């Protein structure tokens, strides 16, 4: 993994007052993203707007495509053309992208997709918040695959995680998702953008060997195959079909096993390296509250209340939601009295928690329909209840 410093051209060093959407655009530019294809959709459009405004002076392309399918297809093309690329969307557009997200996985194409979640299903609540696409990001395309998904809890983290997302996508050659929510996407807060030289980026894993020896799907020692870009004389092939290491179609169960198991395992086996959690007062906690995105901020308020009330509460903030931190939850399940899981949906990530807890402790879900955030009191009450 080759690390390089960010190109100062894209880095708007300094303190800014930005919303999460804008911060995503700045994060992308700082991470070296030079291609953005997108289609407007509330509440993610501001990212596209800012990118379109900033890119001419940075050097790169913004294109508004005819729909979200075209956007993600163009993204994959652009990455194979040598650029770092990103798109943003929200629920309906995200659903439309599903087929080509599968293509990106199959072609092992590093790229970043942000979903600024709003209330669903369908058109739902276009301008109001939700965390209802958390399972979709893992399961929304057909077939077996694994992806990485991160959840920012503030505009600052939109910036920071956007850089992380680009880095992770390059390290693992996998589409990486920023699962923001409308609340974070549309809130303005202070965002500090460091100087370019303090931003560490992972360079694409360029193939440096002889032109005719390139095998786009031959795993390197670290499981990850090398990449090239079109136009460099490798005359390579890639396909969405099950393929061999040359990228040629190989349509039988034997190659399926090699090809698809690889897609799954490169993430599963590196989960420990990928996963980033923020834990607080876990050590002698009786109750652990697990949350992500905006909900984790609201949770903090409830937890402060609970601690004041003498309850031993720890928190885990899932910065990485996928791969899910199975190991850590399993480990903690043995020591803990109960888990409390608030999320803005009718039960998504809580199912993963339940699965990993394996009945060792009750798991209390606090659902929210979307359109607003939890009332901290509600979370506090659940914590109190759980601690009894």
């Amino acid at each position: 993994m080759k690390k390089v410093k960010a190109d100062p051209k894209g880095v708007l060093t300094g303190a800014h007052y930005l919303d999460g959407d804008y911060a995503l655009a700045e994060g992308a530019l700082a991470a070296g993203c030079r291609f953005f294809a997108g289609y407007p959709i509330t509440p993610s459009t501001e990212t596209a707007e800012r990118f379109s405004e900033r890119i001419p002076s940075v050097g790169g392309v913004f294109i508004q495509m005819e729909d979200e399918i075209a956007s993600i297809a163009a993204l994959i093309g652009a990455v194979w053309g040598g650029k770092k690329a990103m798109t943003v969307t929200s629920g309906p557009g995200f659903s439309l992208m599903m087929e080509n997200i599968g293509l990106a996985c199959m072609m092992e194409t590093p790229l970043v997709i942000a979903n600024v979640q709003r209330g669903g299903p369908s058109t739902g609540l276009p301008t109001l918040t939700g965390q209802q696409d958390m399972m979709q990001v893992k399961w929304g395309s057909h077939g077996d695959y694994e992806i990485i998904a991160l959840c920012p809890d503030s505009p600052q983290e939109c910036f920071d995680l956007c850089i992380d997302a680009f880095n992770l996508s390059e390290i693992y050659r996998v589409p990486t998702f920023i699962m923001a929510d409308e609340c974070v996407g549309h809130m303005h807060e202070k965002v500090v953008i460091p100087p370019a030289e303090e931003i560490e980026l992972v360079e694409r894993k360029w193939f440096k060997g002889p032109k005719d020896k390139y095998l786009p799907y031959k795993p390197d020692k670290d499981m990850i195959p090398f990449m090239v870009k079109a136009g460099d004389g490798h005359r390579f092939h890639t396909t969405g079909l099950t393929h061999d290491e040359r990228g040629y179609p190989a349509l039988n169960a034997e190659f399926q096993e090699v090809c698809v198991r690889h897609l799954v395992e490169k993430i599963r086996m590196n989960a420990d390296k990928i996963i980033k959690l923020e834990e607080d007062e876990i050590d002698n906690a009786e109750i652990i509250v697990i949350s992500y995105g905006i909900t984790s901020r609201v949770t903090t308020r409830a937890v402060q209340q609970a601690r004041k009330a003498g309850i031993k509460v720890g928190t885990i903030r899932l910065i990485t939601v996928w791969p899910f931190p199975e190991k850590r939850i399993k480990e903690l399940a043995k020591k803990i009295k109960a888990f409390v899981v608030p999320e803005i949906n009718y039960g998504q990530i809580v199912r993963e928690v339940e699965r990993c807890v394996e009945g060792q402790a009750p798991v209390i879900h606090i659902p929210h329909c979307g359109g607003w955030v939890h009332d901290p009191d509600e979370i506090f009450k659940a914590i109190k209840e759980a601690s009894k």
Partner: protein
Amino acid sequence: MKEEDHLEEKNPMEDLLRMDRIPHIWCPGCGIGTVVTSFAEALRKSKIDLDKTAIVSGIGCTGRVAGYVKLDSFHTTHGRAIPFATGLKLANPELKVIVFSGDGDIAGIGGNHFIHAARRNMDMIVICVNNFNYAMTGGQVAATTPTTANASTAPYGNYEYSFSLPYLAEASGATYVARWTALHLRRVAKSMQEALGKRGFSFIEVITPCVTLYARRNRLGDGLNLMKYYYEKSEIQHGADTRTVDISYQGKLIVGKFVDKEKPTFLDCMNEHLGKVLGDKYKSYGVSHE
């Protein structure tokens, strides 16, 4: 290996095709292979840098073309070759990008991308093998199936009107539009060569026999019969008004080069416009500054 020894010279296709993947999957008598040889001829004659040439296909029998051509080659999803190619081209403007795919892929599911890429005058060549049906999936009716022709999902004959692709392409903004049958070997190659030498959105439709499905279901004989049949039904009308070139089941096939004009491409427009508005602050994109 031993056989190779007998060859005094190597097959000129070897530089252009992935010989390690031949035999291809196409049926005996299928015309797609012939369109590919015309394409190979065009590539060779145009003398463009093949290392800077990329081919993108969607899914379908024709969609397999990308897999056989020895260029940077992309076999994408059904209908999405054009937006994929758009990203590819914009990310690396020095590439010549060719989309090579079927009628269902380009004008069926991919129709929107087709018209929008034409509208933008995105610099690419779209070669559409029109075999009047969805072949790969077993011969279903397509937006190009002539009225009354039979198809597996039009078992009593097709009763929908079909698209005239050259008309649609021109109405959407294409700057080069031609139609040939697969048997117009050299003319197909020449059109491709012309398009390779041009900038902007070029569209070449090649009417091609699908022997296994379309021909069989419509009792049109074998590949050879159909090759001949299309050829004989064709009438060259260069510069024909695209409004007049629609195809009926057993009718005349008007072929030729219909449109050939110059218009700034998407990137030309972008660079020119941003240059004008932003002045020196703006550095033309895709034009080598380094």
